[in-house]
């Protein structure tokens, strides 16, 4: 049995090619993902382990480091990680050295005055020289460490990116004024934020504490003296620990970091594996097609085997052994290709600026096993049904001279099952639960896949008028496309799946984008919003400065405070009640902005409904400082994603804040948005790279950019599924041409020329591709609609938008897929010699 299976595989090499390619690509995707994430995670781990070299024990505030600003309304706690503590730890027996570290947002301007490294990119830290005068965290490659307030050092990657050299003067800002400093040196570091692609600047210790606004260290790192173990050091550190601080061993820190990296990489690999799974699923259709054809072609041979005594089980097994061999070959090549994919991904990410750490390629044994098992199992699974069908061939078929035509039997069963599945999915759609709804959409997708053979007939019949200009070849290609509805259906399904996902995601993304645009346009009247680049609080002086500008018509801060209103914990934004109406437009259900004077507040409708409030009521709001204010409800408005919560005059909010800061400042100019206006604002704020000034369009562009980036990534990931679907179209056409050799030969004999033969095959490919595309796009729109239905519950301005432009592009691509896929089968069809074809077997 094994030998016949092997012979069969070898005999049908060419016909199995597309199947092998499909499985291979799927396996390559899976193993590439696994190898890449393993390699990446391993390199990251090695790097981060190194960054803990100088830490035997770390002292951190309870609840983690880098978290002491005290701005969020809480009462300030006295500093714990002080110089005194640092001195004490340095003098501990068993401590070799101890350094204190601080780090916080620092905006560094590049040569054009723009912020380096994006919104969250640049951090600033201190240079804390140890006993040897060096800070072990930084390894200077050029120049020297900063020694005074006028000096700063850059990490080497940022230096390379910006073109700054030692001796250059740079501008930077933390949350105060813009400062200037001379670059004293450039360093390499293993710091996590830099490894993740961020930028780092380093100040001398005193300057760092001052400009980063620190009253204590974020962390004190103690290095054990030779001969002292981490645990011993840790217990002696614990004896001097002040309140609300913890001591962590270097091993613990390293483990925590490792766990975090693990979590991040596994999240990434899960996303990639989902798409790999989609690609493999698509591949199943091609494999099933190929094996169905192989079985159909070998009907006589298999019947002969049955006639001479092979059991049904043996026949099925021989088909499955073939599938096993094909799957194994494809998995092995796919795995090899996957290693290439992993390396490609790495250089792709690096060229996209993600700067991954270098490390050796990690090929885990599990990866090899997973790749091989997936390749083999998927192939055998897809070949199982054709194998079953092979077993049903009666021995007498060997004696029949008649070609066993593929039966249409079974379609009735299939259609019934499909209809039931679709009905079930439709019922699920009408359920209240969003998860059930989403599941319903998925169930309908499965049902439609089952029903595609049924759908293929009316769809392809409907294409007749479009094919009219092609005359008889158009007609023949249309008839050929429905000759084997199962095969056409599974070929089209492969394409359909990819396009369904692509269309659904495009619909949701574009609708979401314009919903947000609309929201911004509807609710914001301000020309500019001013905020910190890292969304840290703004000093209230910023608004004062802006308000004094001659071009400014109105301005108001959004000054966040928090408080309890009945059972709701809500944000109370302090606004300039006189200017607010010019900057936003609120959709009042009752009351108006005019009432917002004195101890009053605007309440969003949801809170009002929850608390049973109406305009004119007076409500107590208990602020976070523990004091309660009695506020009169000036109006109730419809909230949205941009404007929600309570709005109260600044005078109401200010007394309850420990430190008055603004989230953002909204500005309306006398002459609207202009370069001049923006320049004026920038100049008034001291050309500060840390301050972000956005006009309305910039807000919209930022959202659109993010949505497009996400979409393009998804398109890229789904490209593999589409590619495999193309292989499926090629496969199907090659089969069609092979099966219709005689027919094509006869037509060549009675006068169909080569060009027309090619045209006929090409048109068939285009029909099948477009069938898949139209089904996919239709289903995608439907899915988009289902998803939108639940989104519009939370995002009020969401209305489904059909991206006609993109859909047209998808259809064109599908048509092109048909043309490309038909190239090789059409050529071989045209090359058929009429004589070879009409001579009987």
């Amino acid at each position, binding site marked *: 049995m094994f030998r016949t299976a092997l012979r069969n595989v070898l005999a049908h090499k060419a016909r199995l090619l597309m199947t092998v390619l499909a499985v291979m690509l799927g396996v390559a995707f899976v193993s590439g993902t696994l190898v890449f994430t393993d390699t990446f995670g391993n390199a990251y781990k090695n790097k981060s382990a190194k960054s803990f070299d100088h830490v035997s024990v770390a002292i951190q505030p309870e609840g983690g480091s880098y978290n002491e600003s005290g701005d969020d309304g809480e009462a300030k706690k006295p500093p714990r990680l002080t110089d005194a503590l640092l001195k004490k730890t340095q003098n501990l027996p068993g401590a070799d050295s101890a350094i204190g570290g601080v780090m916080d947002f620092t905006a560094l301007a590049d040569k054009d005055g723009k912020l380096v490294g994006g919104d969250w990119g640049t951090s600033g830290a201190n240079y804390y020289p140890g006993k040897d005068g060096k800070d072990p965290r930084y390894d200077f490659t050029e120049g020297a460490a900063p020694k005074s307030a006028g000096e700063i050092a850059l990490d080497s990657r940022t230096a390379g990116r910006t073109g700054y050299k030692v001796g250059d003067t740079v501008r930077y800002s933390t949350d105060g004024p813009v400062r200037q400093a001379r670059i004293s040196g450039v360093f390499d570091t293993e710091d996590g934020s830099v490894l993740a692609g961020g930028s780092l600047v380093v100040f001398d210790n005193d300057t760092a504490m001052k400009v980063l606004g620190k009253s204590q260290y974020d962390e004190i790192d103690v290095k054990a003296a030779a001969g002292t173990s981490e645990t011993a050091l840790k217990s002696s550190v614990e004896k001097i620990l002040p309140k609300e601080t913890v001591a962590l061993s270097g091993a613990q820190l390293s483990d925590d970091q490792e766990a975090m990296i693990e979590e991040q990489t596994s999240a990434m690999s899960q996303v990639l594996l989902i798409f790999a799974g989609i690609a493999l699923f698509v591949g199943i259709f091609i494999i099933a097609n190929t094996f169905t054809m192989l079985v159909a072609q070998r009907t006589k041979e298999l019947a002969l085997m049955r006639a001479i005594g092979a059991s049904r089980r043996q026949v099925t097994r021989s088909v499955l052994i073939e599938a096993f061999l094909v799957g194994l070959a494809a998995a092995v090549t796919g795995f090899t290709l996957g290693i290439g994919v992993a390396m490609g991904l790495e250089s792709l990410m690096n060229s996209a600026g993600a700067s991954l750490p270098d490390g050796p390629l990690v090929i885990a044994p599990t990866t090899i096993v997973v790749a091989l098992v997936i390749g083999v199992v998927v192939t055998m699974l897809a070949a199982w049904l054709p194998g079953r069908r092979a077993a049903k061939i009666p021995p007498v078929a060997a004696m029949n001279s008649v070609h066993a035509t593929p039966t249409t039997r079974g379609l009735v069963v299939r259609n019934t099952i499909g209809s039931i599945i679709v009905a079930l999915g439709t019922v699920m759609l009408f359920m209240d639960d969003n998860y059930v709804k989403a599941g319903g959409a998925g169930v309908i997708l499965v049902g439609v896949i089952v029903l595609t053979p049924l759908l293929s007939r009316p769809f392809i019949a409907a294409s007749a008028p479009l094919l009219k200009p092609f005359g008889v070849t158009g007609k023949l290609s249309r008839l050929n496309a429905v000759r084997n509805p199962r095969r056409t259906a599974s070929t089209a399904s492969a394409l359909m799946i990819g396009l369904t996902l692509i269309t659904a995601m495009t619909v949701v993304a574009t609708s979401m984008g314009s919903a947000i645009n609309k929201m911004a346009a509807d609710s914001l009247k301000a020309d500019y919003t001013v905020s910190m680049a890292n969304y840290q609080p703004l000093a209230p002086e910023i608004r004062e400065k802006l308000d004094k500008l001659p071009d400014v018509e109105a301005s108001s801060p959004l000054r966040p405070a928090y408080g309890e209103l009945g059972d709701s914990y809500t944000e109370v934004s302090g606004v300039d009640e006189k200017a607010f109406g010019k900057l936003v437009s609120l959709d009042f259900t009752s009351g108006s902005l005019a009432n917002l004077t004195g101890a009053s507040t605007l309440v969003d409708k949801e809170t009002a409904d929850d608390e049973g409030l109406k305009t004119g009521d007076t409500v107590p709001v208990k602020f976070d400082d523990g004091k309660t204010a009695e506020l009169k409800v000036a109006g109730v408005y419809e909230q949205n994603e941009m404007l929600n919560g309570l709005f109260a005059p600044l005078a109401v909010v200010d007394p309850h804040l420990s430190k008055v800061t603004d989230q953002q400042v909204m500005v309306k100019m006398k002459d609207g948005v202009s370069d001049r206006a923006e320049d004026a604002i920038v100049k008034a704020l001291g050309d500060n790279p840390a301050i972000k000034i956005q006009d309305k369009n910039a807000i919209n562009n930022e959202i659109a950019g993010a949505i497009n980036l996400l979409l393009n990534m998804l398109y890229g990931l789904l490209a593999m599924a589409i590619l495999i679907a193309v292989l499926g179209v090629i496969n199907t056409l090659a089969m069609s041409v092979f099966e219709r050799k*005689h027919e094509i030969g006869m037509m060549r004999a009675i*006068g*169909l*020329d080569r060009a027309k033969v090619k045209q006929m095959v090409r048109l068939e490919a285009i029909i099948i591709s477009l069938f898949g595309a139209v089904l996919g796009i239709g289903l995608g729109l439907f899915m988009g609609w289902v998803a939108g239905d639940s989104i519009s519950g939370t995002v009020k301005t969401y209305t489904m938008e059909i991206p006609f432009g993109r859909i047209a592009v998808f259809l064109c691509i599908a048509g092109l897929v048909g043309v490309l896929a038909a190239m090789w089968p059409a050529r071989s069809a045209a090359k058929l010699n009429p004589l070879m074809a009409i001579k009987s077997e």
Partner: protein
Amino acid sequence: MTTMPLADRATTVAARASELSKVYGHGETQVVALDRVSVDFRQAEFTAIMGPSGSGKSTLMHCVAGLDSFSSGSVRIGDTELGSLKDKQLTKLRRDKIGFIFQAFNLLPTLTALENITLPMDIAGRKPDKEWLNRVIGMVGLADRLSHRPTELSGGQQQRVAVARALASRPDIIFGDEPTGNLDSRSGAEVLGFLRNSVREMGQTVVMVTHDPVAAAYADRVIFLADGRIVDEMLSPTADGVLDRMKAFDAKGRTS
């Protein structure tokens, strides 16, 4: 059986092969399929080509019909010399001047009987001559089967569709490659009858390859091929006469 003298009917030649040779392979493995064959197929004449397997009878037909290339010599269909034609021109010639009936794989299963009949004209983008079409369909007796698909027709009916298709475009010459090879004797007789009628009544030219003496007896003239050469010719043949002639070749073949 008596027929009119051939000379009285027509003298125009529909197709002519002169010094036609077809050689496969080189040197040691060289096989001569046709050896300087010269033959005329006259208009409005029904010719059968006979010969044992491997005699070159099919090769001769394929070469004359523009389906196969030849090594030397010349072939003319009407005034057109085939040797110099490219594939595209050959295809056009087959489409417009030649009709074909094959042993099997004659019809497209996706098309109805009528659509199969008009296929050559559809390919050419021509409208069929309605009157002629009806006459042809009437002759083969398919008027009530036109909307059926080949799978719904018997073997004999399928071959009648093929005959109608060959006749429908009024070609200069019709070639049949064992047209009755897959049919039972009654259906075969019907098809041959139609072919003979098309020659007698419509003035059609038919050339048919067969190994069946009964089929050959329907022809006006039988050409006997052996080892790539024309070895004999019989006018107004009868089945017995053809059979005797064949037996004689076989006997010669066995003794030589």
